[in-house]
């Protein structure tokens, strides 16, 4: 340590985000006062971000196993078996706070981080997704944030050459002070070549590769765990700059090295950089580690051990190699023009010993630090139960078709083309279904099979009734996969919430988890990875609870799938699932009446499963030509989307016994699909045999969308409304 090392005063402890009790535990573990480097290490390791101290108790409730799960939560990403000796590796992660402070770099480095989680495990990334929640469109910051975040996601993903194929985006004043940027990466690896983080082999070399370490983002992990207030601006320098070019080289170099028999353990340096990566590797392997900080490649002179250990410089990897394999590794990294250094070795001491300039800069016990990490059983208060809205009590619009046009030109329902136009969604030439459908479909390279991918969450439902909202998010993602003909396999979740120290927030969290759990169990849809982002709160006001679900499904034969557009005129349109006309928490209520009240639609998981299994069967058998699931916006919005995607109209007639016209058109009952088929009555009779509600609603054809009793509107006019809002809102020129 340098002579100027700061004394460990209570203020210094507090500035490191450690409570008095937590610090007492530090003293106990150390048996002495820690120095500043050691304190910094405790601080990041025990931050909410790294320790999951508020969420761990609840996350344990999630179902994480299935015969096809190769690796559930606990590693860098989840791994599932997709047959033919291949595995799909995927995870989602938030970069909310950095993206609010610096939208371009915050979002870009979010993409970079999640890509590393996936290729660290030996997978080649094949698709990126993102789930975005912005503040109200008329909030002064929103336009700038949308422009920057989208450009940042594109800027990074496009450069590394991984297609960004799907995502979600919505706007609500609840996110004015805390936008959400959740990024997901999907990769493919050989099922027998998955790489894990657990270090082993006393004496084995510990190797650093990638970019040099600079003073960026020091304390990013604690920033991500601290609530915002108006001094957030002062924390600005903690934002990092991404270097997607280096990431691309790192992907290629790591995959090349992984093909050699050289790596024992590998871990990317994400939040809390060298600290968390080295602790994780040593901790999981039950070994000690000694690192010579003088050997760490640094970008600037005079970096202290504290800075080196806490730096969040991007595009870095830590590995434990088999003895004698250093030269092969070095050759590969040098070919790719990346830094490479042997910085330490594994020991049998169970301790982490850091050396700098010949002296010991830090000496900490590994297991006690991880095992004694605080776990909180925070108090929870349940969300008050919303009253169920009687559809009859919700006013009808002046014109149902006018209301449809209003909905389609609203911020939450308009086309997202402006966004995905900025993402290279075709590179790798395996994108079979591009953005814009229920789920994107990416071919498994060199085969006739494909993965379907989607992200979903309706925060309005979650806010009104967190348990229903959590279940609905899972069910909707399952439905979106089903709608393209995929067999849903597993999910990753990204839990975005406010301050967990507030019982109402913790109540939302616990209930959302419960809903997710029930849906996962009912749908055989385990959680294999995830991420928790708390403290999405400004001046005491939390965001809507937002448990984003990222889901993966498998299509065994790409010639047997469906998509949203109507395929031909004169086909029957069949509605699958029961329609009650549920308008609580609906888009109709929000966009046309400015109301956000009522209970969300109930989620009947048994019906969800039965309906979905039936629809998938019909798709795979070839009976279905187009399919779209019904979600927010309801039936008429879904029909309009099918029409707009094809340029072909349709005529629909509400069946006998249908609810009031506006409730029939815009009700958000779950578990429903619209499908087209050559022979509607035959499909309906098969459904009846299976006990599935189904009705022929009408026929495709013409250039207008007609709902009997409500009127007619041209598809061209709908499309103009649909495509217009976002480009007009974003304007031209510099974002």
């Amino acid at each position, binding site marked *: 340590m340098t002579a100027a090392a700061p004394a460990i005063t209570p203020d210094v402890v507090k500035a490191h985000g450690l409570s008095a009790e937590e610090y007492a535990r530090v003293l106990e573990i150390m048996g002495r006062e820690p120095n500043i480097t050691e304190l910094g290490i405790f601080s990041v390791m025990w931050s909410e971000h790294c320790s999951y101290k508020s969420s761990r108790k609840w996350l344990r409730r999630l179902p994480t196993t299935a015969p096809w799960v190769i690796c559930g939560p606990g590693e860098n990403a989840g791994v599932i078996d997709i047959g033919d000796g291949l595995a799909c590796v995927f995870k989602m992660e938030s970069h909310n706070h950095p993206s609010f402070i610096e939208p371009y770099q915050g979002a870009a480095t979010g993409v970079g981080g999640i890509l590393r989680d996936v290729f660290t495990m030996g997978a080649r990334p094949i698709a990126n997704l993102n789930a975005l929640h912005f503040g109200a469109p008329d909030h002064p910051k929103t336009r700038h944030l949308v422009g920057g975040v989208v*450009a940042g996601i*594109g*800027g990074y993903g*496009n*450069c*590394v*050459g991984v297609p960004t194929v799907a995502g979600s985006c919505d706007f609500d004043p609840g996110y004015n002070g805390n936008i959400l940027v959740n990024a997901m990466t999907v990769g493919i690896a050989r099922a027998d070549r998955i790489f894990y983080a657990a270090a082993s082999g006393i004496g084995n070399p510990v190797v650093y590769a990638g970019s040099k370490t600079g003073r960026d983002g020091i304390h990013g992990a604690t920033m991500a765990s601290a609530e915002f207030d108006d001094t957030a601006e002062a924390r600005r320098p903690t934002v990092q700059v991404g*270097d*997607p*070019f*280096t990431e*691309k*080289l790192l992907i290629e170099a790591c995959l090349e090295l992984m093909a050699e028999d050289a790596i024992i353990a590998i871990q990317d340096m994400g939040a809390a950089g060298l600290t968390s990566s080295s602790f994780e590797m040593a901790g999981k392997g039950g070994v000690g580690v000694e690192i010579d900080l003088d050997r760490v490649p640094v970008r600037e002179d005079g970096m202290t051990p504290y800075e080196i250990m806490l730096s969040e410089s991007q595009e870095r990897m830590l590995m434990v190699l088999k003895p004698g394999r250093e030269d092969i590794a070095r050759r590969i990294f040098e070919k*790719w*023009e990346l830094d490479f250094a042997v910085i330490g070795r594994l020991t049998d001491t169970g301790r982490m010993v850091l050396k700098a300039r010949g002296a010991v800069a830090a000496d900490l016990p590994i297991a006690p630090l991880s095992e004694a990490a605080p776990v909180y059983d925070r108090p929870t208060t349940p969300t008050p139960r919303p009253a169920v809205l009687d559809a009859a009590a919700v006013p009808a619009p002046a014109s149902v078709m006018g209301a449809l046009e209003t909905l389609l030109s609203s911020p939450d329902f308009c086309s997202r083309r402006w966004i*995905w*136009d*900025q*993402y*290279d*969604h*075709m*590179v*790798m*030439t395996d*994108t*079979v279904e*591009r953005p814009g459908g229920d789920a994107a479909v990416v*071919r498994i390279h060199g085969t006739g099979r494909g993965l379907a991918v989607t992200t979903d969450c309706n925060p309005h439902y979650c806010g009104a009734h967190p348990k229903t909202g959590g279940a609905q998010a899972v069910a909707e993602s399952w439905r979106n996969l089903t709608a393209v003909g995929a067999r849903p396999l597993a999910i990753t979740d990204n839990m975005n919430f406010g301050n967990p120290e507030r019982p109402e927030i913790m109540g939302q969290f616990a209930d959302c988890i419960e809903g997710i759990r029930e849906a996962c169990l009912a749908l055989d849809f385990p959680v294999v990875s995830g991420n928790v982002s708390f403290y999405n709160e400004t001046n005491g006001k939390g965001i809507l609870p937002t448990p984003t679900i990222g889901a993966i499904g498998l299509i065994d034969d*790409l010639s047997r799938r469906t998509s949203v557009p109507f395929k031909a005129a004169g086909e029957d349109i069949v509605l699958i699932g029961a329609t009650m006309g549920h308008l609580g928490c609906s888009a109709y209520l929000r966009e046309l009446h400015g109301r956000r009240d009522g209970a969300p639609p109930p989620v009947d998981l048994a019906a969800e499963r039965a309906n979905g299994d039936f629809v998938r069967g019909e798709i795979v058998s070839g009976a279905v030509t187009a399919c779209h699931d019904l979600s927010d916006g309801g039936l008429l919005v879904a029909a309009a989307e099918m029409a707009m995607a094809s340029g072909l109209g349709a005529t629909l007639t509400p069946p006998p016994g249908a609810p009031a016209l506006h409730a029939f058109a815009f009700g958000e009952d779950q578990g429903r699909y619209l499908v087209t088929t050559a022979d509607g009555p035959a499909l309906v009779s098969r459904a009846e045999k299976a006990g599935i509600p189904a009705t022929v609603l009408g026929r495709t054809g013409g250039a207008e969308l007609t709902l009997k009793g409500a009127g007619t509107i041209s598809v061209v006019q709908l499309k103009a409304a649909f495509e217009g809002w976002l480009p007009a809102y974003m304007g*031209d*020129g*510099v*974002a």
Partner: protein
Amino acid sequence: MKSAVIVFPGSNCDRDMQVALARITGTPPVMVWHRETDLPRVDLIAVPGGFSYGDYLRSGAMAAHSPAMTEVRKRAAAGVAVLGVCNGFQILTEAGLLPGVLMRNASLRFICRDVYLRVEDSRAPFTTRYRTGQVIRIPIAHADGNFFADAETLKRIEGEGQVAFRYCDPNGEVTAAANPNGSLGNIAGIRNRAGNVLGMMPHPERLADQLLSGIDGRAMFEGLSEALG
């Protein structure tokens, strides 16, 4: 037909080009790392898309100086066919193999979407399988595709029939609305004077597979295969 694909640090359409060439011409291309100075004897050299060197400084600028490009220049001078797609086009202009430059898109945004192109002629070796005036649909994916040349150069390019493709609407009309990036004369692709070097911003290799919603790019590789044996 034998072909080679040059790979730079940051190339990311190299595999796509490899797959298209292998599948359509029947012979897998040789993948050549940018540091190599010994190019295999081939009939076609493809310079693929991507972000060579991150597109830092200027798109294509750093790759244009790589050892492999020195060889490509020699081969081009000797008449070997050279195809540059997207970043490859940018590299060929930076390397002086094609005139003009590709500046930042007028919208300043990255754009990924299908566009329509009017094929300006059906000369060998690149466009023999297209008809002059044919309208094809091919995707673009770039931030720097805004073709620019000074007035004199542009006159020469136009005068000598070096324009290979122009952005157009689905009916083949070359309009401002159909110009995605601000390119002069809606130019999407050009040849050198001799006709053996072609650069284009759109990606023919991306729509050359029945499963990917279009195969208008396929004819380029079939044509090359036919013209170059």
